[in-house]
């Protein structure tokens, strides 16, 4: 992964001690030392720099912080504690190990308060040094990884909001355009001349509302804010209700909707979640179908839970489009979908709900032949 490459396996260590022998000893002890981090897929090694005083150390750190600071408390000029206090503020993963000849509790408490990570009482053996360094290095690597994940999350969030902004601006712009035309009587004084403008404004407003509703739904599901109630539910009844909901749209375009499955399929589930899944799949199957096509929804019990398979005879997708399908706001924009309105969040919602129920969503599609979506849910059977 690209992210892992950024987590360097080599940590910079700065030893601050006025005894040259001590600095050399540390450098030697860490020279060929390696700490495996199997969870992160790397081995940490160390490069050691030395400073003989607090002042020298601060001057060096002004050029760039090390990852580990081995800091003697008793130094000729400013003390180790003062060095800690003068470290530049800001986001960094630096961990400090205080080296003390006379380990008093007071020094220890002060140093921890100033942000030191650990202690090493003098005199110490190379093994004792490596044990402390291993622990601190682990902390550095973990902190760095956490920071990278946070940055990636921020980036994803930024992209989501940018796309959302654009998706909301487009219908708003269209509605504003129509309102201006009406304000300026730009189509003349006959009221009927504005019928299409009014109708289109309503369609675009409806699209905006749907987007906002889907967005709220997705946010509630993602944040775990939506209260889930697991109760005995007949999944087949839920599917029948969803089929009735899409019936008017299907009928208007001569699309037949067929259901297959047992008479009842009792499961322990959150009924609303099942409804959202069934509605989304059936709506898509009608929306992206051809006129006069068919939609076949098959419900079957599985061990454990159920599978819902919805197949349409619609425009279908290429392999490349199918691969992108679960991204948020991904609506296949091409000549075939130009006149189909959608929020682009429906399948994201279905996927989140399936995952919440220990399940998965799979899609098989052939361009100009149709798409089959299968949702598997791991639900306990209800008595």
């Amino acid at each position, binding site marked *: 992964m690209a992210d892992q490459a950024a987590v360097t396996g080599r940590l910079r260590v700065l030893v601050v001690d006025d005894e040259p022998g001590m600095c050399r000893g540390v450098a030697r002890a860490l020279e060929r030392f390696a700490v495996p981090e199997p969870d992160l897929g790397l081995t940490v090694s160390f490069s050691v720099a030395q400073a003989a005083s607090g002042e020298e150390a601060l001057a060096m750190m002004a050029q760039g912080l090390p990852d580990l600071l081995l800091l003697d408390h008793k130094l000729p000029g400013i003390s180790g504690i003062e060095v800690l206090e003068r470290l530049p503020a800001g986001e960094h993963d630096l961990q400090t190990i205080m080296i003390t000849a006379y380990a008093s509790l007071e020094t220890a408490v002060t140093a921890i308060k100033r942000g030191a990570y650990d202690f090493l009482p003098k005199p110490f053996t190379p093994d004792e040094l490596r044990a402390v360094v291993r622990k601190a290095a682990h902390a550095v690597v973990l902190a760095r990884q956490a920071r990278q994940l946070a940055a990636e999350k921020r980036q994803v969030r930024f992209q989501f909001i940018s796309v959302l902004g*654009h998706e909301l601006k487009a219908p708003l*712009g*269209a509605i504003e*355009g*129509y309102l201006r*035309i009406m304000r300026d*009587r*730009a*189509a*003349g*004084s006959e009221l009927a*001349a504005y019928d*299409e*403008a009014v109708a*289109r404004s309503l369609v*675009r407003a409806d699209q905006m509302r749907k987007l906002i509703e889907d967005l709220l739904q997705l946010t509630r599901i993602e944040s775990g804010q939506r209260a889930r109630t697991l109760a005995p539910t007949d999944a087949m009844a839920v599917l029948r209700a969803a089929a009735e909901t899409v019936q008017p749209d299907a009928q208007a375009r001569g699309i037949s909707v067929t259901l297959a499955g047992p008479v009842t399929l009792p499961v322990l589930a959150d009924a609303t979640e099942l409804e959202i899944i069934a509605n989304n799949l059936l709506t898509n199957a009608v929306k992206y179908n051809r006129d006069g096509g068919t939609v076949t929804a098959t419900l079957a019990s599985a061990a454990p839970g159920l599978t819902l398979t919805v197949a349409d005879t619609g425009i279908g997708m290429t392999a490349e489009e199918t691969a992108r399908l679960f991204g948020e706001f991904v609506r296949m924009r091409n*000549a075939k979908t*130009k*006149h189909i309105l959608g929020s682009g969040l429906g399948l994201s919602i279905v996927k989140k709900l399936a995952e919440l129920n220990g399940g998965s969503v799979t899609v098989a599609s052939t361009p100009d032949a149709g798409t089959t979506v299968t949702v598997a849910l791991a639900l306990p059977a209800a008595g």
Partner: protein
Amino acid sequence: MMSEAKAKRHQGTLLVADDDDDYRLQLVLQLQREGFRVLEADSAQAAEALLQRETIDLAIVDVVMENWDSGFTLCYHIKQKNPRTPVIMVTAVSSETGIDIDAATDEERSWVKADVLFAKPVRFEQLLNQIEHFLHG
């Protein structure tokens, strides 16, 4: 309110080719109010079909329709049929993708067959001025 006499002051047949239904409808309503006869096409293909049986005085063409360069091809065909037909191209490309299409130099203009290129959103008055300039200027 605008007087009818002032409103219906234009003549001529314009082609509006744009796959954005709302943008096209708004433009058509405003151009009709100005007195123009307006032919609508929601794709370059539909526009080509119209050109087979109609003669136009000016075309307003969106760059990105079926393909990212549909408008350029359509423009080329309009000029092929009659090099003197003015073509105004409009595009949301720069505002949406940050890609700039600028026909500033003679060489660029010779490559892009359009007479002028506007970035969406275009103010109607600006567009109308340009149309008037091409038809009467």
